[in-house]
């Protein structure tokens, strides 16, 4: 691990070298990047991707746009066709054919010498791969939700803290001005004392029944795709639509928790704590392979008296997005640069110098790269990401058990409910285990 010292150390070292008037060429051929590239003074962050599906590719394209800031060198996926496409994309951007490919993340992590890794995988893989990447002292751009279970999340958070790496969650709404402004108005009391928050997330989908068992396509390593999840026959549902199956995801609720719940917490000062009581109801499909709740509606109570209702958009008056209600009014934010308020004048309020200034970023991917270089915390660090998904996961547990869940956000334990407590983790299928930190 010693040779994998962080980019920050390198930056400090090169600064020292520069101070010593020891001049090195500023432009080097790309071939020297990657393996051992870090000893050469370059501004570029050497990065690779694990998971090259739709979100992985989307992130990759956003990183590739930062032409002079990153050097993409390797990609990893369990689908050979996607992997080939990812390599093609990287090579096209790099104008060479050097991008290395891996079908097994363990080999990727073992062989590649990177500054950072961008990871976008089905949620059931997050516990293992995030923790292993962080244990290798890699800086991580990790997709939300950061975990499928509370236990997975606790492990990842500990790993990030212990290894002191830069973590950026793919909660990119934080880097958009309307969400930033709404959150700043809320946290600075422009709607009065915060009482109640409403979070609307997408409605569920129509089912597909249960498709017949199919031959696994030759490009797909199905065993590796399943990994720690229970073994099931391949029915043509893997990429993208894994999100509608509880073994891999909690559905729209957990997918979007890292956006609108994260924003809600940001503007309410709740991003380093959690609710103390959660209760609610879900509507589950009655037929077919998709089994995530298609409707959900639960209420979280916080120790400071704030309440947060999370529901699918059709159940809420303002639909999608986050609405902070204070005793003087409300502010609502949503995608599409939406920001509205009970009184439009609230939106013109300027946040003063002595008030709470929330972290400002204009480009989520650039912010990560900048922080890897500077050693500064990124705009979407690990613990707020964990706290955002925890709300959804606790809601999921309340809906599964049909009970009111009493949660200790400090100890991260459910009080007096054995059944609910069991749902804090998904046991892993052998031989997979959650790595130790």
């Amino acid at each position, binding site marked *: 691990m010693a040779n994998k010292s962080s980019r920050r150390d390198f930056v400090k070292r090169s600064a020292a070298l520069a101070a010593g008037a020891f001049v090195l060429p500023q432009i080097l051929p790309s071939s020297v990047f990657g393996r051992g590239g870090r000893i050469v003074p370059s501004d570029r962050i050497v990065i690779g991707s694990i998971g090259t599906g739709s979100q992985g590719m989307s992130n990759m394209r956003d990183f590739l746009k930062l032409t002079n800031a990153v050097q993409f060198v390797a990609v990893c996926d369990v689908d050979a066709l996607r992997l080939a496409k990812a390599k093609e994309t990287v090579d096209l951007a790099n104008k060479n054919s050097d991008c290395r490919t891996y079908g097994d993340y363990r080999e990727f992590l073992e062989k590649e010498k990177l500054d950072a890794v961008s990871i976008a995988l089905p949620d059931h893989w997050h516990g293992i791969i995030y923790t292993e990447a962080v244990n290798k002292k890699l800086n991580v751009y990790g997709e939300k939700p950061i975990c499928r279970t509370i236990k997975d999340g606790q492990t990842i958070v500990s790993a990030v803290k212990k290894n002191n790496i830069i973590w950026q969650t793919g909660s990119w709404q934080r880097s958009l001005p309307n969400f930033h402004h709404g959150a700043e108005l809320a946290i600075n009391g422009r709607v009065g004392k915060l009482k109640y928050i409403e979070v609307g997330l997408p409605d569920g989908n*129509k089912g597909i029944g249960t498709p017949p068992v199919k031959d696994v396509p030759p490009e797909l390593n199905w065993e590796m795709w399943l990994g720690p999840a229970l073994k099931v026959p391949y029915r043509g549902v893997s990429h993208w639509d894994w999100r509608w199956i509880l073994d891999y995801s909690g559905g729209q609720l957990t997918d979007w928790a890292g956006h609108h719940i994260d924003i809600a917490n940001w503007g309410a000062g709740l991003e380093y704590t959690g609710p103390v009581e959660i209760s609610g109801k879900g509507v589950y499909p009655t037929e077919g392979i998709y089994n995530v709740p298609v409707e959900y509606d639960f209420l979280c109570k916080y120790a400071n008296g704030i309440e947060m209702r999370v529901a699918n958009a059709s159940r809420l008056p303002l639909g999608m997005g986050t609405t902070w209600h204070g005793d003087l009014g409300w502010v609502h934010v949503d995608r599409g640069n939406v920001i509205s308020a009970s009184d439009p004048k609230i939106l013109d309020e300027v946040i003063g110098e002595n008030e709470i200034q929330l972290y400002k970023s204009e480009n989520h991917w650039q912010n990560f790269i900048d922080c890897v270089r500077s050693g500064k915390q990124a705009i979407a660090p690990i613990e707020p990401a964990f706290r955002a998904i925890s709300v959804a996961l606790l809601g999921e547990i309340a809906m599964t058990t*049909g009970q009111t869940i009493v949660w200790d956000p400090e100890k991260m334990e459910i009080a007096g409910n054995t059944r609910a407590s069991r749902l804090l983790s998904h046991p892993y299928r052998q031989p997979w285990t959650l790595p130790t930190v």
Partner: protein
Amino acid sequence: MMKKQYLLLIAAGLITFISACKNETAYKTLIITGQNNHNWKASSPVLKQILDATKLFTSEIMITPEKGGDMKTFNPDFSKYKLVVLDYNGDSWSDKTNAAFLEYVKNGGGVVVYHAADNSFPEWKEYNRIIGLGGWGNRNEKDGPYVYYKNNQLVTDTSAGPGGTHGKRREFLVKTRITDHPITKGLPSRWMHGNDELYSLLRGPAENMQVLATAFADSTAGGGTMRDEPMLMVINYEKGRIFHTAMGHADEDGGPAMQCVGFIATLQRGAEWAVTGDVTQPVPNDFPSVAGVVLRPGYTEISLEEVFLKIESYDIAKSTKYLSYLQSYIRNLAGDEKGLLDLEKMMVKVLSGDKATVDAKKLLLRELSWMGSDYSVPAIKNLVQDAELKDEAEYALARLQK
């Protein structure tokens, strides 16, 4: 000995008394049918079955004279009933019967307006105030506004045009618009309805009316208005409460529009509300969602016994509905330790037996992993030896033995 027999006798007497009471307290219901452009011979017995299944109602079907017959002979004593269900679209009733019906509603009698009954009596003004909205029979702007949702806003539209249309029959999504009404409280906000006519362009007085649910009339099936058309409505007419369902077009045996659990449960709930102003029935375990249509071919809810009978031959490729029902049943047992243990014992019995399929056992193991107790552990340990069930058994034990 004598004493014990005596007690038993008293007990038996009590049970008879209680069940007699129950019958007597059920709301007497009159289903009026006999003329309809729809298949009333199929629909009316189904309506009776659906209502009586709640044990809240005892209904009787009254058949009017045939079309062109002597309507004077149709002269029900409405005062005997708590609920009148209208499955009638035909000749005018006698003035006397009309007056008696209005008197019944004004005095607080409950009414259910079912599907084509909103086509009936276009000229009878008070009837149209009772049903709120109607269609066909030359209804147009003179009869009242169109009422619908557009861009999630309730619209009362007085523009000129005919009342009543529908495209080709299809399954469609019903959206709950008022979620805190006793009839809709606890229901999904969106659910798929069985193959039905999607009534559109209904118009009428719409006084004291709330639209509880709508469906979007898209253009794919023809006749699409591109509006969210009212499907479930409640109307207050003096002291009377009226529940109006525009759904449930009947086929020979009722068919999917009537077998749809959404139709059945909203009818049952709407009928209770019409009588009492409240709903005491729980939302059934098999109520549909946006995920898909749920039908009850025999119109009755699956029983837990049936679930366990079917779960033994559970084949995921055919259906998951018995498992979904069991999961819903478990959620509804929350906090009931005895109920959960009883259920766990039934589940363990299936696990330990040799009748159930591997799929069935796998799914039971997943449920037991969180809702089970020490009771399950020995049976699950036995399954660790089973190559096909090893992973699921270990999964369950990892949680249960923590």
